[in-house]
């Protein structure tokens, strides 16, 4: 079979497709060895009210009167725009519109990202898995556990090695996982020697079947610092149980400053600084992200020289979700008792201060050579122009963070993009929308395809093939004149 043709496995016809041609469906094409899909094109319309969230326009009503809005009100996204294939061809849409008297150009294309992935932030104290553990989806390795941030576990999924470096099934499972996460669908991830977690953008994580409700207010030590004053005088000692840094009021700097007397309490684990303990238990999905169900298991017997019968002890987790109240008996053994009313409030306060636990998904990808070649004849000039903030980059109209350094490596919050903004090609790779907006004169300077620039009005005429969406109020308008568009 011809060497440069690729096999499309999007449907059972399994067409062999030559470069620059499409399969029998006319929807998938061979783009320089990559399979590309074309979808209806999304036009983000700046809702007049500015308060509307994104809604698929034609689904709601086909009675749109087709009235033209001015350039400042309509932005053409890359969703469904198609990709630049072969490489040297101009991007599918190069749109000009006049913004406040300055001709602006938006180059719109769908990028095929082999170098891409998602950074997942999962708000939970529970132990999901050790750092560097492999994350599996559909039984395949799709990423790994990375750092623990404040109240959140970070996962890094995808990347070129999982997409293209492993078996075909690994690549497909990775692409599918990325696609679903980016399109804000739920995905189940299994972490080696760790938890099974269901994640979905903007939704609470579900860890081993239990939905996470809230984020920790802080680490155990920080919690002591925040609530020391409220506990002072109402209880003799407080232990805030935390898998990372467990705090003890009577030993903690905050307690010392208030004059909290010593209680003779002894914690297991390793003391870091006064009142701060590491590794009081093993990581887990119970109290403060540890594996303990009985908080007393992290305590050694009280110092008989210091402790006295009747001392009052509160133990609480970093989210206020777990708590227990004890009083020392005559033998200096803690006996559980009902939480007194005066302490109830502080536990509730911890809970109140915890934000809702969410999963957040950032798409990360690098704009490769072919994508940049679709914008200009001299691709490095685009890189420089982005670097110099003359060109603004958006993903489906959503703002992106452009990493400093070489190339155009971007991160975007998928929650700020229109629904189903991502696609895939069976190679496998992710198809993500990307738009470059700059002044027409700058576009000419960087070697843009000036003869392919189309006025916005030409896009607005054929409304049947385009989805018109209201712009999200929390996104900066991609065409707004701002300092960084000089």
């Amino acid at each position: 079979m011809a060497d440069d043709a690729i096999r499309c496995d999007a449907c059972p016809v399994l067409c062999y497709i030559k470069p620059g041609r499409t399969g029998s469906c006319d929807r998938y094409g061979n783009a320089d060895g990559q399979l590309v899909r074309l979808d209806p094109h999304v036009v983000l319309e700046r809702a007049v009210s500015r308060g509307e969230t994104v809604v698929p326009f034609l689904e709601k009503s086909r009675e749109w009167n087709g009235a033209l809005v001015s350039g400042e009100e309509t932005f053409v996204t890359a969703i469904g725009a198609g990709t630049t294939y072969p490489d040297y061809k101009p991007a599918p849409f190069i749109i000009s519109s006049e913004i406040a008297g300055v001709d602006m150009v938006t180059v719109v294309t769908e990028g095929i990202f082999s170098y891409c992935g998602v950074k997942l932030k999962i708000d939970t104290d529970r132990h999901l898995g050790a750092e560097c553990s492999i994350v599996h989806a559909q039984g395949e390795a799709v990423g790994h556990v990375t750092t623990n941030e404040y109240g959140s576990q970070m996962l890094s999924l995808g990347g070129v090695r999982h997409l293209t470096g492993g078996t075909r099934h690994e690549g497909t499972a990775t692409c599918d996982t990325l696609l679903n996460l980016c399109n804000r669908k739920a995905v189940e991830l299994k972490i080696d020697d760790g938890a099974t977690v269901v994640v979905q953008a903007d939704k609470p994580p579900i860890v081993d079947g239990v939905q996470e409700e809230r984020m920790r207010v802080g680490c155990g030590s920080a919690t002591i610092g925040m609530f020391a004053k409220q506990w002072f005088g109402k209880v003799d000692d407080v232990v805030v149980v935390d898998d990372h840094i467990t705090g003890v009021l009577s030993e903690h700097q905050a307690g010392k400053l208030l004059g909290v007397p010593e209680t003779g309490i002894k914690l297991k684990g390793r003391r870091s600084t006064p009142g701060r303990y590491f590794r009081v238990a093993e990581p887990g999905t119970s109290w403060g992200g540890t594996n303990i169900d009985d908080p007393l298991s992290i305590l050694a017997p009280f110092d008989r020289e210091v402790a006295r019968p009747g001392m009052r002890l509160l133990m609480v987790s970093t989210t206020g979700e777990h708590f227990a109240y004890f009083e020392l008996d005559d033998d200096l053994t803690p006996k559980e008792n009902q939480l007194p009313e005066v302490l109830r409030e502080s536990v509730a306060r911890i809970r109140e201060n915890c934000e809702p636990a969410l999963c957040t998904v950032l798409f990360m990808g690098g704009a490769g050579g072919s994508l940049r070649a679709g914008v200009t004849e001299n691709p490095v000039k685009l890189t420089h122009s982005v670097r110099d903030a003359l060109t603004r980059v958006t993903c489906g109209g959503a703002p992106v963070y452009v990493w400093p350094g070489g190339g155009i490596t971007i991160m975007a919050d998928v929650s700020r993009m229109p629904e189903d903004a991502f696609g895939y090609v069976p190679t496998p790779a992710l198809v993500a929308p990307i738009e470059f907006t700059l002044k027409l004169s700058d576009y000419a300077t960087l070697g843009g395809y000036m003869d392919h620039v189309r006025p916005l009005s030409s896009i607005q005429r054929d409304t049947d093939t385009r989805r018109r969406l209201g712009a999200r109020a929390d996104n900066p308008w991609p065409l707004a004149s701002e300092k960084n568009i000089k």
Partner: protein
Amino acid sequence: MAASIGEKHKVSTRAQIRMLPDGRRLHMHDGPIDLIVEAFGEAKEINAAYNAASSRFVQVLDELCAELIFLRSPARQNGPLPTGPIARRMAEAVKPYAEQIFITPMAAVAGAVAEEILAAMTSNAKLSKAYVNDGGDIALHLANEETFAVGMVERPDRASLFGTTTIRYGDLIRGIATSGWRGRSFSLGIADAVTVLADTAAMADAAATVIANAVDLPEHSGIGRGRACDLAPDSDLGERMVTQSVPELSQREIRVALELGLDVAERLEASGLIQAAALNLQGETRILGSDNCAPSENISRLIWSPAHA
């Protein structure tokens, strides 16, 4: 995005079936198959028809692909028959041509799919009329006294009609198909569009392909042609030269090419394979099946009227 990648070979996630925003027409899509369906009658009958169409549709692509190698092979007059009902409709429709020319059952795939879905609808619901439009190849159902208005488009990228016609209950016509080099499938000829009316959609599909192939100027060096296998490695047309571009032709050249197609169309009409045909090449139209050569009373009632281009 249609399907989750991991599950794409499951029919249920691959096929897309939805009502169009007008609330009347059903749109069904799966791989290269794209159907627009509309049924007329009582609401509950329409509902039953759409349900039947949907249940049948989700099987279609897998059913066809199971026999794809056979369906891409040249048809033979007394060769073995495929097993699937759609494949059989295809084989049946191309059989009359098998002795004379190269043709594969794929020449009738669109029409055969349209027929099969229409049959699923009409056998499960009482409809006054219905159509299944498979990318321009249309299967029709007409109850007593019902009519269909049909418009013909010269080029798929230009929505202008070059002719209209009305199909009535009494006509034998239940299939319409169009073929041309600008369409989705490869053509060996240079016709912009050949529209055929025939007894069934599969017959119309096969005939339109054959007639469009015949509209040609074999010696014209300006016509861009390429081997089908170089363009699409698994094309059923193999090394045959398919049309890629057609330069502006002189009036004489247009006439000659159309005459070649018309000759074939007349023979097909005489053998009862088609009821009528309209051949279009660079703005010139030839119509067969109008009053002067109508073989039956039914056809003479067809109204072919040119529409502005």
